[in-house]
């Protein structure tokens, strides 16, 4: 579960990124986080991944209180969430298999677990047979599927996707979003940050709108409705 309560985040340079944000996302829910550039969406992602701490207010991620978390606990908190980025962030010198294996090695998985889990996850994202390819040999859509597979490989309870379709054409974007919807249907909480109205409108999911560091809309429906 994700819970933000009266969260204020002011950066050291004086920028007020969030000015009292409150919302909750329950386990197994699918939510879009939308808003224009500079609205505070990225700061929310950074709060959820432990890259920044709130200036005031409370942030709870899968049972970890991000305002009081000890530094040594952050890796264990991060293992409960899988993060997907707009630019995929795959390691170009490693094969698809090794990119996924690295994420599993990082959480102390055994070779046997790795050998069992990776083919299953690659099949889930529609990349079976591509394990030995390098990221550079794959299309943008396929690279994003690898990133999704990497986010899923340690079986996190939550997936946070930061503009996952920003580098893809509309057809591939729809495929990725459909894949995320399927993953959500399997019980994983999914939070997608995006500003693509078309995509948001295509799925009848919860939409949380952020503007100027405040929540200005929260409900099921389309982007336009919230505006």
């Amino acid at each position, binding site marked *: 579960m994700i819970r933000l309560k009266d969260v204020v985040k002011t950066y050291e340079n004086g920028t007020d990124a969030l000015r009292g944000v409150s919302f909750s996302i329950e386990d197994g829910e699918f939510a879009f986080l939308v808003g224009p550039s500079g609205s505070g969406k990225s700061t929310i992602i950074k709060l959820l991944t432990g890259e920044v701490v709130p200036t005031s207010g409370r942030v709870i991620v899968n049972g970890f209180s991000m305002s009081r978390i000890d530094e040594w606990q952050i890796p264990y908190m*991060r293992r409960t969430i899988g*993060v997907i980025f707009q630019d995929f962030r795959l390691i170009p010198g490693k094969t698809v298999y090794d990119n996924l294996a690295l994420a599993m090695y*990082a959480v102390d998985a055994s*070779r046997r677990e790795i050998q069992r889990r990776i083919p299953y996850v690659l099949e889930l994202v529609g990349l079976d047979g591509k394990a030995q390819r390098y990221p550079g040999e794959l299309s943008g859509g396929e690279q994003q599927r690898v990133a999704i597979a990497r986010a899923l490989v340690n079986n996190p309870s939550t997936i946070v996707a930061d503009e996952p379709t920003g580098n893809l054409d509309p057809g591939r974007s729809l495929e990725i979003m459909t894949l995320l919807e399927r993953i959500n249907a399997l019980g994983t909480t999914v939070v997608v940050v995006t500003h693509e109205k078309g995509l948001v409108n295509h799925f009848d999911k919860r939409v949380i709108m952020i503007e100027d560091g405040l929540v200005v809309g929260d409900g099921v429906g389309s982007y336009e409705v919230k505006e």
Partner: protein
Amino acid sequence: MKHNFRYFSHEGVRNMFSHGFMSFAAIGITVACLVIMGTFTLVAYNANENLKDLQRENAILAFVDDGLNDEEAMSLQSELEKLPNVLECTFVSRQEARDRYVEQYDEDELYSDLDPEIFRHRYVIRIVDLDEMRQTVTALQEVEGIAKIRADENISNGFLTVRNIAGVISLTLIAILLIVSVFIISNTIKLTTFDRKDDIAIMKMVGATDAFIRWPFVYEGLLLGLISAVAAFGLQWLLYGAIAQGIANSDTLQLLRVVAFERIWIVVAAAFLVVGMVVGVGGSLTAIRRFLRV
């Protein structure tokens, strides 16, 4: 952590080869540092060994006053033995001194009828510490009944000077060169960490602990240090052998005793390995620190 040693060592080797030239340079400089440190330490060690020999072999001669009769001369022994730094004190009578002198000249007839009376009773004194030879000589001179002292202070002072200078230089060099080696290895690993900063950020994002991220770089440093230690040991062995041979072949230096490398190789190898590992691991930990703040 338990499952990952294969991964860590594989990544460590991969890191090392990803900047082959810098790794080669780091190994080269570390080898040079280790050999310089080793050479000065071995010079100091050999000077010390020669000093010990000198202590064993080189004795002070204390000549007894001619005015003392045989019994009075012999009675000085207990007084001399009480002096500080005196290890052993042996009385040599006029007759014994004369016989030894004649013996030196293969019983040459020219010396065969030497009168023992022209020799003095004497004591052959061995001391504990050559560093305190001067004080011991002064104390001996103050003993009533001792007329004259003969001590080869110049030779012992020469060894003491070599040992002390080599000791100070080796200590100073060890300190300086250790820092240089850590800096060089640290910079090499910094290149790898800089190259892999995106990988590190990804690893942190998927929940890797700092220890997990650090290990491959520690392995890399350890490997660089160990390879340097092995190469430096081989080079030191060759260099030591060449110097020992040179001393043995030299007319003026062959009096020096060079300790055989076979007698000290284990200590040298252990010291190089320990220093190599400390330098390698120290360098890698210094390099990785900044990149863990994600």
